[in-house]
């Protein structure tokens, strides 16, 4: 444990519900510790707010290990904050300096309706998955696992895309609020595996259409999504999605 303490100024988005106007509210934590995670700083602040009889700040969080994808904060304009390849739960205060000011906001996108303070509704992602993010195999007795060899390059690539944690930072960072990185990652994962081939045309068309229907914008290659992605998903997934889509459409027509 570090013996130092630091003073951190926070400007946090407070909003009662989606029908009420929100605003940034100033808070100061004068005994932050460099070894705290950013979410622990919010816990610390909340504890103090409760002791003062004030309402704590609501934010989503769960595993705090960077894998569940629950946490979703924009810090000083960056989804998940300043550390690349890191969800905000794994960001530690040692990244900041004594006296720093941090503006804390929720994901902002039409397809992610606001719930309270820093909490938004990301169920649109589940609906994109339900549109085709799976291989149609019932529980039962499929062939022996080694009956389907997959060359290591494809297996590794599929894993790279499968590492998406579904947090939605790609949407939050995109000027168009596009969900292309999220959707492309699943399509590219399954396109690299032989198990995914029978349904690949139907899958890509259905998922891409669903993405538009949910109110996400289109991709115009800003690549902001890749820059903020905590799972470091490459935008090649978007290129793969487009290639799959073009092939599927031309063949369907």
């Amino acid at each position: 444990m570090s013996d130092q303490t630091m003073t951190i100024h926070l400007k946090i988005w407070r909003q009662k519900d989606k029908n009420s106007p929100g605003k940034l509210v100033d808070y100061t934590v004068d005994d932050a510790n460099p070894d705290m995670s950013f979410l622990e700083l919010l816990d610390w602040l909340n504890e103090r707010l409760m002791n003062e009889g004030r309402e704590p700040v609501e934010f989503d969080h769960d595993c705090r290990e960077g894998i569940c994808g629950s946490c979703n904060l924009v810090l000083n304009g960056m989804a998940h904050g300043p550390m690349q390849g890191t969800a905000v739960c794994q960001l530690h205060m040692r990244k900041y300096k004594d006296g720093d000011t941090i503006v804390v906001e929720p994901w902002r996108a039409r397809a992610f309706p606001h719930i309270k303070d820093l909490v938004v509704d990301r169920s649109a992602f589940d609906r994109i998955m339900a549109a085709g993010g799976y291989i149609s195999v019932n529980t039962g007795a499929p062939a022996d696992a080694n009956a389907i060899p997959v060359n290591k390059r494809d297996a590794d690539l599929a894993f790279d895309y499968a590492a998406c944690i579904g947090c939605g930072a790609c949407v939050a960072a995109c000027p168009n609020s596009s969900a292309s990185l999220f959707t492309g990652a699943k399509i590219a994962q399954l396109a690299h595996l032989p198990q995914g081939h029978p349904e690949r045309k139907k899958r890509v068309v259905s998922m891409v259409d669903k993405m538009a229907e949910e109110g996400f914008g289109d991709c115009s290659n800003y690549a902001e999504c890749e820059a903020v992605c905590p799972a470091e998903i490459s935008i090649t997934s978007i290129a793969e999605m487009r290639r799959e889509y073009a092939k599927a459409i031309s063949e369907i027509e």
Partner: protein
Amino acid sequence: MTASNNGVLNSKVPEGNLQDKWDNHKNNLRLVNPANKRKFTVLVVGTGLAGASAAASLAELGYNVKAFTILDSPRRAHSIAAQGGINAAKNYPNDGDTVWRLFHDTIKGGDYRSRESNVFRLAQVSNNIIDQCVAQGVPFAREYGGLLDNRSFGGAQVSRTFYARGQTGQQLLLGAYSAMMRQVATGKIQVFPRREMLDLVKVDGKAKGIVTRNLTTGEIERYAGDAVLLCTGGYGNVYYLSTMAKNCNATAIWRCYKRGAQFGNPSFTQIHPTCIPVSGKYQSKLTLMSESLRNDGRVWVPKKKGDNRPPNEIPEEDRDYYLERRYPSFGNLAPRDVSSRSAKYVCDEGRGVGKTGLAVYMDFADSIKRLGADAIKAKYGNLFAMYEKITAENPYEVPMRIFPAVHFTMGGLWVDYNLSSTIPGLYVLGEANFADHGGNRLGASALMQGLADGYFVVPYTLSDYLAENLHSEKIGTDHEAFAKAEKETMERINKLLSINGKKTVLDFHRELGELMWDHVGMSRNKEDLEMVIRKIAGLREEFWKDVNIPGENNTLNKYLEYALRVADYMELGELMARDALDREESCGGHFREEHQTEDGEAVRDDENFSNVSSWEYKGDDKDPVKHIEDLNFEFVTPTQRSYK
């Protein structure tokens, strides 16, 4: 203590040879014909590996499934954080693995406190799980020839663990979640996110529904079903600090306990040996470093007390590789309970490292020298990166500092061979039940059990129950039992919100956690346990008088959710201490100081405790009553577990 043995539980284990039990049983289970399946609704609470796999499999069969999660999406359940892998007896490496050996390792690893028939079935279906997951597109690690790779884990001398880098749980859960979302698209599954189950509804003694709180609106909602599947995970967060996610909690199982479901072996907790140590009071949770690291990391502390030199300046002759020394045949891969206790001993001796002295080193220098840093990075890159993010130390250059932390609970609601609790119609799957791991779970077995229960056990055993209930009356949510459960839930919430005391929920949870960790953790004794039971009773009384919960019910209010959970932890913590006090032996993760050898190894008492303690709730002002399920070992002979 007035614990008394009130009769023997019927585990409904089928007759016959171990190898034939499950097949014979399946042959005899009743079926529901396809046209009748759609008349049934199954409520699945929790969407981790057990819940998601059960929901998908049951929907594929044609049942109507309602699936509930406290999180905003089923994909976020804490199974997602499991790192290392999943066991199966495929014997792909040709190192002599068999179903029998996986069964035997699991029974032995559990220190002979699990049911033979369940564990054998688990080993039998382990291979189907791998096949199923590969068919779903789970990207397991592969060799250059395109076939699946394996690695070894604690408590086994074969390589039977399948893995997907250090994110196996994530990939398996996303596989099960995808299967679930496919059924959402067909309309057979309805998902209810941000819902917390706060009570079980029983009609004529059978589980017929649940009451949930809508975590966004605060509304109390009623859901009726023909069966309820609890897949809500373990209760490690009783200890405040654990490797569990912040929202993991015991409320669903505890509410069912209070409605009559018995609780099996509540004191059986797994303390995982390799976690990142605590750094300060603000610490909100602990992070695990996968056991797979022990394949290449060597665990050591300085030989001398108070040796404050930086680790790289401590020469070989001044280091004590205590696991290799004490357990030469298993070395750094000794099982979790043994490794954790060994770490505690060396820290108790004053040989712990780091600022707090509550840590030991796990050193990769030798492996890096032998295999190269790139090979180590390929195997454990994400774990090393995570370690560096949290501690700001580079494990390629300095040894990791690790310490044990609460990680898994082998105890849980008691279930029979069919995974049915003592309440008909209430099934309990995965970590939420007590079944398969006995006194200690082996690495890479939790994922196996969650998926075995959900994909390959409950779809068969549930049909037997539903077939029997084909003609029973359908209960609607207007039934008075729902009204009563809803009213009681609302009263509990209103009471909590009206206290307006001075201490936060966190204050109470931290206090409870400290008591539990210090006295119901790695090492337990009679005097401390009796003291803890008294102290928890006092803490609980104080909680209901002096807790301060902000805000209102009719909105998102995470500290209200948290208060409801902590209220239940305080009751469960007491039951855990009672069970630990009652079990006068050391077995697996349960170590009673009164029962050890001269060199500190656990001493089991098979004469008196070759059994499961199953506790029945009798009322808030009454002591619970203990029931016994005798464990009869017909096929293996319990021996003193030795990893030397």
